[in-house]
C-alpha cells in the first residue's frame, strides 16, 4: 500500500447534553483538525462525514452538516456506521490517486434521542424487534455467553471499568472520570445480568475529525508530525445473535490478522505499544484482548488481572479512558484513532504512554459488535 498519513486530528470534549448543535460540533473539530495539520480548507480535496439518521433525528443527515465539514464545492460522501469505517473509506479515497487529502468527520448527540428505543430499531422489524432488546440487554447475552464459556468473572470485568474510568482522569476530553474500586462496580445497580451500571458506557455528545494525506502531500506541505497507516482491515459477522459464536469474535480475529499482516506485525502483544479499543461495556475490552491476539482465547481475565493493560503495564489499553468514559456512538471509533495519533506524536499529555512507536485503534458497529475495524499506526 502507498504510504498514507494522518496529519491532523481534532476532538470536542465529550459531555451529555451539549448545547452546540450538530453543525457547530462538526465545525469545531474540522477547524481543530485543520489547525492541528497546519492546513487551510483549500488544502482539503474531499470529505467523508459520518451520520446516523435515527441519532440525528433527520433524514439525509449528512447534508445539513456538509458545510461545517468543509464539503461546499468539494466531493463529499458519507458513511453510516462507526467513525473507523468512515476513516477506512477516507483512506480508500486517498489511495485512489484522485485526492491528495481527505477530511473525515464524525459527530453524535446520543443525549438528544432516546438511546434504548433507537438501539431497539436496529433489530429486525419482522422478527425480533418486538422483544424490546436494546444495547444493554443484547450485550448482556454476549457477556454471559463469553464469561460462562471461559470462566471470566464479574470482578475481572469490573477491573476494566476501574482502569478506564481512572485513566479518564488524565484525558481532558473524557466525559466520565471516576476514582472507583471493583467493589463500587460490583455494588452498582444491576441492569441486565451480568451487566451493572458501572460496566456500561455513558450517554455522550461530541465530535471528532481527522485529516488523511498522501506521502506526496506530507512532503510538499512539510506536515508537522505525520502518523503513518501501517495496516487496516474490516470484517463483519452474521446479523443474528443466534447464528454467531458470541463467545469469540471471529470477525475481530480476521480483521486483526489482516491488519497485522499488512503492518508486518507477528506478535501483537510485544510489537504494539498502546491500544485504544471500543469498550462499550467492560466485558468487551476483555473479549477484544483475545480477538486482537493480545492473549489467547479465554485469557482476557488473566490479562487484566496481571496488570498488563494498565498504564505502566506491558501494553496499556485505553489510556484515554476508552469508550467506557465517553461514548458518543458514531464518533467513538474515530476518537480511538485520534487518541492513537496523539500517543504516537508524544502529545497525549498525562495519558501519554512513554516512547509509543506502534499503536492500535479499533472500532465496532452493530448489535453486539457485528462489525470490527482494526488500525495499526506508527510514527
Amino acid at each position, binding site marked *: 500500500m502507498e504510504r498514507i498519513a494522518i496529519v491532523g486530528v481534532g476532538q470536542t470534549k465529550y459531555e451529555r*447534553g451539549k*448545547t452546540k448543535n450538530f453543525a457547530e460540533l462538526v465545525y469545531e473539530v474540522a477547524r481543530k483538525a485543520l489547525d492541528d495539520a497546519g492546513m487551510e480548507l483549500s488544502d482539503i480535496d474531499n470529505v467523508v462525514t459520518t451520520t446516523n439518521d435515527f441519532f440525528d*433525528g433527520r433524514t439525509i443527515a449528512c447534508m445539513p452538516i456538509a458545510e461545517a465539514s468543509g464539503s461546499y464545492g468539494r466531493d463529499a460522501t458519507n458513511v453510516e456506521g462507526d467513525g473507523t469505517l468512515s476513516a477506512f473509506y477516507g483512506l480508500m479515497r486517498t489511495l485512489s490517486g484522485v485526492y491528495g487529502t481527505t477530511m473525515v468527520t464524525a459527530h453524535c448527540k446520543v443525549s438528544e434521542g432516546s438511546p*434504548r*428505543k433507537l438501539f*431497539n430499531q436496529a433489530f429486525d*422489524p*419482522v*422478527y*425480533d*424487534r*418486538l*422483544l*424490546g*432488546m*436494546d444495547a*444493554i*440487554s*443484547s450485550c*448482556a*447475552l*454476549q*457477556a*454471559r*455467553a463469553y464469561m*460462562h464459556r471461559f470462566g471470566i468473572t464479574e470482578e475481572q470485568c469490573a477491573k476494566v471499568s476501574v482502569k478506564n474510568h481512572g485513566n479518564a482522569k488524565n484525558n481532558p476530553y473524557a466525559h466520565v472520570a471516576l476514582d472507583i474500586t471493583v467493589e463500587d462496580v460490583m455494588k452498582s*445497580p*444491576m*441492569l*441486565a*445480568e*451480568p*451487566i451493572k451500571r458501572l460496566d456500561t458506557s455513558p450517554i455522550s455528545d461530541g465530535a471528532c475529525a481527522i485529516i488523511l494525506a498522501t506521502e506526496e502531500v506530507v512532503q510538499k506541505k512539510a506536515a508537522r508530525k505525520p502518523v503513518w497507516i501501517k495496516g487496516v482491515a474490516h470484517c463483519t459477522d*452474521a*446479523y*443474528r*445473535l*443466534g*447464528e454467531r459464536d*458470541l463467545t469469540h469474535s471471529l470477525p475481530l480475529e480476521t480483521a486483526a490478522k489482516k491488519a497485522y499482516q499488512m503492518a508486518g506485525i507477528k506478535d501483537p502483544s510485544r510489537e504494539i505499544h498502546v491500544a485504544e479499543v471500543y469498550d462499550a461495556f467492560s466485558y468487551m475490552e476483555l473479549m477484544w484482548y483475545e480477538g486482537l491476539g493480545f492473549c489467547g482465547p479465554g485469557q482476557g481475565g488473566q490479562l487484566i488481572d496481571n496488570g498488563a493493560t494498565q498504564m505502566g503495564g506491558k501494553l496499556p489499553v485505553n489510556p484515554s479512558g476508552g469508550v467506557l468514559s465517553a461514548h458518543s456512538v458514531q464518533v467513538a471509533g474515530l476518537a480511538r484513532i485520534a487518541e492513537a495519533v496523539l500517543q504516537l506524536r508524544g502529545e497525549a499529555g498525562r495519558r501519554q504512554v512513554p516512547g509509543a512507536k506502534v499503536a492500535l485503534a479499533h472500532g465496532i458497529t452493530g448489535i453486539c459488535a457485528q462489525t470490527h475495524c482494526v488500525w495499526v499506526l506508527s510514527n
Partner: protein
Amino acid sequence: MENETILEVKEKDGLLIHQGVIRVPYTWAAGAVASKFYAGLRNKRIYGVRCPTCRIVLVPPKKTCHRCFGELSEWVEVGHEGTLQTFTVVHYHEPELHPLKAPFAYGIIKLDGADTGMTHVIAEADLKALKEGMRVKAVFKEIPGGNYLDIKYFKPVKGEK
C-alpha cells in the same frame, strides 16, 4: 395530528433547546420466508430452513445462508423444545419496549433439530434458577397475530429447576 416537531422550548446555559417527537407510520413487507414461518406458528408448528451446502438448519428461517451465500429453500420442522444457550435477567424498566415487566429474562434457545439459536423471552420460570443447558419449551399465543410474539415466550420444561 398536530405538527410535533417542536412541542416545548427549553433553555440551557442561555441557549434554546427544542423538544419534540418523530412519529412515522411504516409498513414492512415480511417477505416470503417470514410469512411462511408465521403461517407455521399459527398451527403451532415451528419451521426452519436447511442449507443444502452447509447442512445446517437455521431457525428462525431466512432467505440466504450467510456462510455460503446459497439460497435457502428446504423447509424442515423443528421441535417445540430446545436448550437454553445463554440468557440475561433484565432488571430495568422500559415499558414501551419490553413485552414483560422487569425482572424478566431474555435467552437464546437452540430448538431440537436446529443448528442456530433463537432469541426470545423466558417466562414462567424461577429467574434465579435459570442456567445454560437447561431445557425450555415454546408457549404459543392463544390468538396468533402473525408476528414474532406468536411464540409468547419459552418456559422451562417440567422437571427442570
